[in-house]
């Protein structure tokens, strides 16, 4: 497989602290790659450098062979990178469908039109995207009245609006109930496999990671300490030490007991 995203020697220092140090990895189209690690390990910093919110001190971020490091987020978006945030970022003063229409208006370069009625533009395309994430019925509700799990779905619809090649998801299931978590990740998985999108996501919920990631990277103190298939990561001694602990208190049984059937959870976690 050719790499969709190729990150090499990424570094960032804040006031003498090495937040990210020499991180390199690749991601292929259609692949779900999880980035895990303790708080403050540099996951968000890594994300923000790929997304363009931060400029790396050094290193390279190539998307489909094109260098994107240091470009502003809105340019990187135009090159085909969608993003969802740890705390869902949507437009509270708009309806659900208007949130998606906004991304489409931006995609079509219509932001500075002063006279047309925005609510009538790209509505059907926006409704299709909402239907894909299961929110077709709620298109005209104010976004501010949606439950948190639904807001995350709106974000996903927005992120898909520019037909991205790469999706960056920062803790996609944070703040959601377990059932919702798995439903959202299953939906994401189906959508990206169908559209051939590469996904890089961070996550604290181990059941989600082991159930849905194709590959896992572990970050600690700004460095990549392990990378590989979920089974290999589970058994990695160093990872257990800095991150998993003894595993006696991890939320669900299959993550607590390494080697148990993660695939079983995935099957059980389909849309209800």
């Amino acid at each position, binding site marked *: 497989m050719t790499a969709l995203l190729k990150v090499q020697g990424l570094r960032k220092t804040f006031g003498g602290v090495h937040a990210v140090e020499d991180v390199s990895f690749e991601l292929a189209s259609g692949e779900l790659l999880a980035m895990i690690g303790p708080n403050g390990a540099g996951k968000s910093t890594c994300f923000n450098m790929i997304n363009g919110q931060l400029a790396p001190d050094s290193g390279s971020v190539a998307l489909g062979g094109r260098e994107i490091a240091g470009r502003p987020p809105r340019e990187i978006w135009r090159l085909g990178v969608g993003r969802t945030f740890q705390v869902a970022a949507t437009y509270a003063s708009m309806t659900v469908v208007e949130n998606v229409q906004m991304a489409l208006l931006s995609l079509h370069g219509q932001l500075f039109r002063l006279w047309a009625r925005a609510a009538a533009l790209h509505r059907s395309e926006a409704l299709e995207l909402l239907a894909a994430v299961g929110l077709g019925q709620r298109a005209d509700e104010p976004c501010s009245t949606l439950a948190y799990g639904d807001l995350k779905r709106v974000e996903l619809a927005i992120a898909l609006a520019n037909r991205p090649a790469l999706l960056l998801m920062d803790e996609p299931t944070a703040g959601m109930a377990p059932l919702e978590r798995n439903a959202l990740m299953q939906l994401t998985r189906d959508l990206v496999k169908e559209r051939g999108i590469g996904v890089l996501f961070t996550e604290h919920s181990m059941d989600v990671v082991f159930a849905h990631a194709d590959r896992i990277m572990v970050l600690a103190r700004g460095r990549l300490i392990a990378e590989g298939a979920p089974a290999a990561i589970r058994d990695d001694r160093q990872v257990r030490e800095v991150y998993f602990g003894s595993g006696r*208190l991890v939320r669900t049984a299959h993550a607590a007991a390494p080697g148990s059937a993660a695939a079983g959870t995935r099957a059980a976690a389909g849309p209800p």
Partner: protein
Amino acid sequence: MSATLLSVRGLDAWYGRAQVLYGVDLEVGDGEVVALMGRNGAGKSTTMKAIMGLLAARRGEIVFAGERIDGMAPYRISRAGLGYVPEDRRIFTDLTVLENLEVGRRPLRAGAPAWSPERLFALFPNLGRMPQRPGGRMSGGEQQMLSVARTLMGNPRLVLLDEPSEGVAPVIVEQMADMIVELKKQGLSVLLSEQNVPFASAVSDRACVLEKGQVRFVGAMAQLEADEAARREYLEV
């Protein structure tokens, strides 16, 4: 069960015009650790905020150590001996570890363990190594510890501990569990809000399960562990 320390009767609460708690009843005995469980949005944090007086729109009877505290301002509830550790830690990032502790300091109280920075540093050795570090320059796990220590400085009889395991690495979760067990040994009562069943079982005597703002299950922790149907319905996948 030992003497009741905190008793909540018929607690209703609202966010704006949306009602989120419906007649919640709840008790915590002296020296007991009770897990308040339920999914996200079930009303766990809201219950804690309502008890603490941080939510203006509430109704119901809350008695703590024999005194009605519903309707009191948060500072008076705190002075009555009820400590609160918020979900998002809310450390004072500009203040040093010692100064953070100073904000929480209250006079000694009968019937409650007495805390000092020295005793807290013994309980949280990490904090003891960085007394002058600003709160903003600590890791998430250290901030969680500091948030607990700051509340303990008020010498509370009961602590409301809101989702200490949310969003922290599994290895820190284990430390939090050890800490709660230690606090219980010292005679402190704890109302713990939690989604993580293994964590809650490891530290709690009893559980109270919320769903959609209503109490669905009350009983011994062991009873909840055995009741797979209840767990499946109200908690896990």
